[in-house]
């Protein structure tokens, strides 16, 4: 295939992203994920399709959209209804919206286009920053991702990816040489629970963790568990995960991510329901974080990553 024509589906590019890796980074969010965690922080990144969406807060109800394409857009009171079956040119309709309340939830980009965008903050990468590919699951767009990583490395940028590892080992192998840090999520140890809340088995994930932590790239890996009250933030779960990974590689780097209550704010723009839609817990306090960190340490972790 002609490499310059390979496109990625990207739902956001965030400059000055200050998580996930060192320094000031640009974070590229690739759309589509094989998991569907009930607490997902980027629910708009689960479905790989590009679709029109409507943001009621931005809408001024000028009806420019529905006047132009009544077959595609209709109204149910103050609610705009998108007719997803509409086969015409959506971009023409979206162009009519003055506020961008009506928009696509993602876009397509070639590697060259992406690199041009990432280059904008190149001066910041020089002082300890870089680029991070996240998602969704970046590895399911492996052809695009591999090329984007190679191009980034050619420019001398520090690179990181965030993955949930539910992909074939061969995909992971392809990117490892071009990645400085690989953040791998290991959310729930018990497979039954894992299936229940993420809708996939964790067999492949465990297998990949095994490969990773015994490979020559094992020191690039940081295993992470997002602390979700009830679901992942339990004594058993953290201890089991910590034991499991430190057994494979005693020097493994492990990080516990605090619960982010803001994730809920994205759900109104999707047709998914958040796991805590009724009562959203708050983030863990420093003491609570310390408790979980101690659990990990007691279970064999030597290199706990803390920010």
């Amino acid at each position, binding site marked *: 295939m002609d490499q310059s024509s390979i496109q990625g589906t990207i739902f956001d590019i*965030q*400059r*000055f992203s*200050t*998580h996930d890796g060192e*320094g*000031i980074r640009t974070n590229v969010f690739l759309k589509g994920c094989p998991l569907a965690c009930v607490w997902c922080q980027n629910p708009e990144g689960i479905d790989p399709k590009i679709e029109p969406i409507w943001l009621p807060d*931005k809408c*001024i109800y*000028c009806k*420019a959209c529905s006047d132009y394409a009544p077959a595609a857009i209709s109204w149910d009171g103050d609610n705009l209804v998108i007719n997803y079956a509409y086969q015409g040119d959506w971009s023409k309709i979206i162009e009519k919206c*003055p*506020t*961008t309340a009506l928009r696509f939830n993602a876009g397509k980009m070639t590697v060259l286009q992406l690199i041009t965008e990432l280059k*904008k*903050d190149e*001066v*910041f990468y*020089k*002082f*300890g*920053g870089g680029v991070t590919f996240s998602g969704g699951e970046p590895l399911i767009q492996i052809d695009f991702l591999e090329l984007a990583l190679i191009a980034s490395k050619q420019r001398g940028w520090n690179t990181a990816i965030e993955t949930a590892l539910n992909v074939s080992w061969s995909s992971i192998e392809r990117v490892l040489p071009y990645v400085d840090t690989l953040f791998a999520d290991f959310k729930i140890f018990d497979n039954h629970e894992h299936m229940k809340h993420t809708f996939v088995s964790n067999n492949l994930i465990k297998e990949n963790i095994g490969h990773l932590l015994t490979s020559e790239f094992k020191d690039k890996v940081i295993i992470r568990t997002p602390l979700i009250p009830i679901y992942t933030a339990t004594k058993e779960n953290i201890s089991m995960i910590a034991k499991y990974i430190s057994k494979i590689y005693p020097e493994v780097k492990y990080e516990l991510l605090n619960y*982010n209550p*803001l994730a809920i704010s994205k759900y109104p723009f999707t047709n998914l329901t958040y796991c805590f839609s009724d009562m959203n817990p708050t983030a863990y306090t420093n003491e609570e974080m310390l408790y979980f960190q101690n659990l990990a340490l007691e279970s064999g972790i030597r290199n706990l990553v803390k*920010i």
Partner: protein
Amino acid sequence: MDDLIMTQRISKLKEKIHSNVRYASIEQAKIITDTYRANEDKPKIVQRALALKASLNRIEISIDPDELIVGNRTAGIRYGVVFPEGGTTWVDEEFEKLPTRAQDPFEVNQEDIIYFRENIKPYWETKSLEDVIQERYSNEINEISTVVKINQKDHAQGHICPDSKTWLAKGPQGLLEEAESYLENCPEEKKDFYKSVIITMEGAITFIERYADLANKLSNDSTIANTEERKISLIKIAENCQHISRKSPETFHEAVQLLWFLFVILQMESNASSFSPGRIDKFLYPYYKKDIDNGTITKQDALEIVESLWIKFNQIVYMRNSHSAKFFAGFPIGFNIALGGLDEKGNDFLNDISYLCLKAQEHLGMPQPNLSVRLHEKTSDEFIETAIKVVARGSGMPQFFNDKSVIPALREQGIEYVDALDYAIVGCVELTTQGNNLGWSDAAMFNLNKLLELTLTGGVDLLTSKKEKYIYSDQGDLATFSNFAELESAFAKNMDRYIGLMIKACEYVESAHIEILPTAFLSSVINPCLSEGIDVTAGGAKYNLSGIQMIQVANLADSLAAIKLLVFDEKKVSGAEFLEALKSNFQGYEPLRQMILNRVPKYGNDNDYVDNLGTRWAEYFKNRLSLYKNYRGGNYHTGMYTVSAHVPMGEVVGASPDGRFAKEPLADGGMSPMYGRDLEGPTAVLKSVSKLDKNLTSNGGLLNMKFLPKFFENEESIKRFVSFLRAFVELEIPHIQFNVVNRQDLIEAQKDPDRYRSLTIRVAGYTAYFTELATALQDEIIARTSYGEF
């Protein structure tokens, strides 16, 4: 440095500043008027010198028993001084309203008002700077005032960094002797100048001696010197003042005391904003080092002295007329101090004093001094981190300057390399060399957005419907321009004309200063005025620049981009319709306004389409300006900072093509994007700003950013901020500063000002107490984009 503390003494002094009531004082006005009356026959420069001397001899002085550094120009703290040589008409008109005005109010005494009206005002009616300018040039200045604000019309020029090093080395006695020796051999026409310098130095000596006497007296008064500590420090003050009144300082404490007297006396001579100390870590260091080496002081002692000076910087405010107070809201007196930076060999310069100053700022967090840090590629991580931790505490200081941008920009203005390396800052962000420059950095503010409005309407003011006299009427308007080039050429022609008219007005003002406000004392600390026998107002300084501020490139760029894209490139709307929308303040045109806001690139998002338009017009303005020389033979150059003028200068601009409603504030800062429109984050802002050539801001540029406190919570974030500032240096942006504050706190402070009396906020290139700002300005600050939300 981590173990250094803020002493009881300092916290007491800080508390007293907050609890003090601010009065408008006519004490010095009385002395000046009496002196002028008694010396009618003398030349102006001598009259002024005598008036200063009389003030120094007679003004009531006070010492707080907790002080270590003494001196003020009024007995009370933060008094506003009525200064008749600058102007009395505005005082006459506004005296009764001073206590109730929205911005910078002062209490008044009824008897003062009566005395002022009967005895002071009548004398100055034809003599003060304000009155003279008003009588001779008001037409010329008013006719262009919708577009151009001419400054320095009712007060002396400040914004000067004196030669503190020489002042400390020679003291008033040394300078007096020097003037005497010049006087012996100078030509006749220079005699008055030297005589005047001598008169002012005599006054300075007496003034300092008076403090020695008072301290002595108080130290023997057991009701005041009621603790051992107080008695000791009062005796120390007496000894220090006695020594430095005639001799150069021997100790750090004496040096700081003498330095402070310099600034008090400069204020008493000129009553102007922004006499700035500059690089105190450079010129105070030898005194500090000697004491530390001798073991006569500890770091903690030195810090207490520095913090005492910090307190002093907060005790002088500058009372402006109510119009001007809107433009310079919240008392930006501008004691600017520059820390770090390159030394004369181009190496990194830092010492204990640099760190002590940061410590003082961390402890006190008050609006003054205006603390600046000079950054460059070789600045140590440690120093940047220390500075960031101070910023994170929220006073908005230190602000950061970039040697990599500033030094070459100053060189471009003809400044020698050694002088450029040693640059400092005056006032907010105005760049200067030290001790040899009359930068006249606030000569005028040019409202680019008003000029664009008048160009688009063919000369009709959108707010008043008046026809503007000097807008070319034969160039058509937005409804008739057939392409963007036509619009641009109409804009250029109008700009050329207004620049020409502005230059004339600036010349009038400068000529009035030479005639009415010669300043002998100041001239003695600006090189080479003393050796040449030329007053600084008359061009005696080595460098004689004039700075014009472009207000605001951000809105101009956004406006031009909107018209270019929607009317001419994509033809989404006709010029006529767009013009109608502006005339109706977008009433009935919300979809168009939304299209402007959402579909047109905005400055601050790293988008060349719009950024290049801003750069192009800023360059045009600067190049046009560079065709002129000022009254003292120096260059006109440009700055991009507003102080707080973006609010009043927005009030006079109708709906603008960037989607801004009529009368709303313009973008803040000077190089900052319009608030709420920078959606790509802080790196994109830096990138947009970096496209503005450094030579556009040789008079100073200002970039404001607001971060949430939680961004600075951990070491990792501090490191990240270091890299942010390293990129800032690399991008050759002249200036950046940070407000670190929660939006909610500001809203609370608006509701409950008493509880938030000490909350300080970065307005423009200066910090003010948030609750002392008028509501419109508070609202604008709240509306600025915050970063660090996750």
